[in-house]
């Protein structure tokens, strides 16, 4: 499996999920954001292959996307909703991705969890595909790791 295929699959999954439920389009590639105020959600998928997916967004971007998703004003969101939305975004991206990977049998997904940004991966699985996307509301970074 070549890295390029993952890049294409990742951006396909991002387009599909963002446009369908978050009313947002990926406008082009971007540099990943680092520093404080970034929300990160991670989950694992088990099947053939297995691996992990993580999604990073700034709090402000997450609020804007959560407002669109829920059809609410930003100031009507609860404190936990932006984080919950990042988790569900990770869940849907992962589900979309594993559906398109050439597969046999079924996949199981773990429940996504918010982690402090910058936490190293529990297991440094290889290979790595990472893309950052520019959205109208900020930058989305998606990282895919496959178990060896």
């Amino acid at each position, binding site marked *: 499996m070549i890295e390029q295929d993952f890049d294409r699959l990742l951006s396909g999954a991002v387009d*599909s*999920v963002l446009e*369908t*439920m978050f009313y947002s389009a990926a406008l082009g590639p971007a540099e990943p954001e680092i520093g404080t105020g970034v929300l990160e959600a991670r989950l694992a998928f088990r099947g053939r292959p297995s691996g992990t997916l993580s999604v990073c967004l700034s709090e402000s971007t997450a609020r804007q996307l*959560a407002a669109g*998703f*829920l*059809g609410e004003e930003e100031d009507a969101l609860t404190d*936990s*909703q932006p984080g*919950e*939305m990042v*988790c*569900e975004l990770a*869940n*849907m991206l*992962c*589900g*979309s991705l594993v*559906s398109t990977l050439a*597969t046999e049998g*079924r*996949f*199981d*997904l*773990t*429940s996504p969890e918010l982690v402090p940004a910058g936490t190293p991966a529990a297991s440094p699985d290889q290979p790595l595909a990472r893309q950052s996307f520019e959205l109208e509301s900020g930058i989305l970074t998606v990282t895919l790791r496959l178990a060896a």
Partner: protein
Amino acid sequence: MALNIMIVDDSPVMRSFIRKVFRLTGLDVGEFFEAGHGEEALRLLRERWVDLVLTDINMPNMDGEEFVRQLESDDMLRTIPVIVVSTDSSNSRVEKMLALGAKGYVTKPFLPGALRDEVEKVLGVAHD
């Protein structure tokens, strides 16, 4: 007659989204019940009457597949229609859930109108 709806999904925002979809239907909704996994849902279902269940598959404690299996093995609960709402779009999973007794299936991500239409189809009502 007001309908009681149960939403089973480990994502609170997804449960909120699904609740909002029901406002697109003409249905008279009585109460929404929510659960984060199958075990919690089964507990609630033994206490309150529910007219429709919407459930995810990938959840902790008890996943959607086991949850539907248990519903269908209970004489009372098996009469409640179930719609699966899941990221898993594989033919094998869809077939499995329908074979277990689910009446509808919507793949995430989905347009609100698509879930609205599936709910109306499963309950046998028309809109507009």
